[in-house]
């Protein structure tokens, strides 16, 4: 199907890229239909709304900077996305990129979790206070031994 994306313009996608978030995202509850798109810059992906072409989020695999990150899913979460097996669970952190990209942050308190089998997902609120809405990605990568800054 042909869709309109915020960053990519018109693009053809496969129906397997279409994700349903029955509860939307917090603050964006009425947006349930989304697509997962590759970005021009790995390892980022786009979560593109299919209801509003101007609405899209940059997302990232949080284990790139937190290798042991595993969100805790409540029974209600699991119910909503249809009891994923471990290998069926996709986990993404939503990324905020300010003007100075060195200050890019990732949200580990509200990860996006998707059952790749049912292609249903949700933003799962984490109650573990270790996880914040703003983790500085470059700082955490540096702590892991990746010496770098935004280019």
């Amino acid at each position: 199907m042909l869709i309109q994306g915020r960053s990519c313009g018109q693009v053809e996608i496969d129906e397997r890229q279409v994700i349903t978030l029955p509860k939307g995202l917090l603050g964006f509850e009425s947006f349930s239909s989304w697509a997962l798109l590759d970005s021009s810059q790995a390892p980022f992906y786009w979560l593109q709304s299919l209801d509003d072409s101007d609405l899209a989020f940059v997302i990232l695999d949080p284990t790139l900077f937190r290798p042991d990150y595993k969100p805790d899913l409540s029974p209600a979460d699991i119910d909503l996305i249809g009891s994923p097996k471990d290998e069926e669970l996709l986990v993404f952190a939503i990324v905020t990129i300010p003007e100075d990209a060195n200050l890019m942050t990732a949200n580990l308190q509200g990860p996006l979790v998707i059952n790749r089998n049912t292609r249903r997902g949700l933003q799962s609120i984490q109650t573990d206070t270790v996880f914040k809405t703003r983790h500085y990605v470059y700082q955490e990568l540096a702590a892991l031994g990746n010496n770098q800054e935004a280019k």
Partner: protein
Amino acid sequence: MLVLSRKVQEKLIIGDGIEVSILEIKGDSVKLGINAPATIKVFRFEIFQAIQEENRLAAASTTILPKLNLKAKQAD
């Protein structure tokens, strides 16, 4: 909004099986006990608000994506 007065040790029932107890009142702080089915999620409102706010900021991110150099990861 429904407004109710409760004393310490008193309770409220909300819907089917959500029980809220007033456990302790100390100064301007109230300690609540909540019994709810596992399918009902209970969060501090601030967490909810913080994630909403961050989502709004994230939605306004630039579409020019920075480079992430993941050498150490690839060397694993």
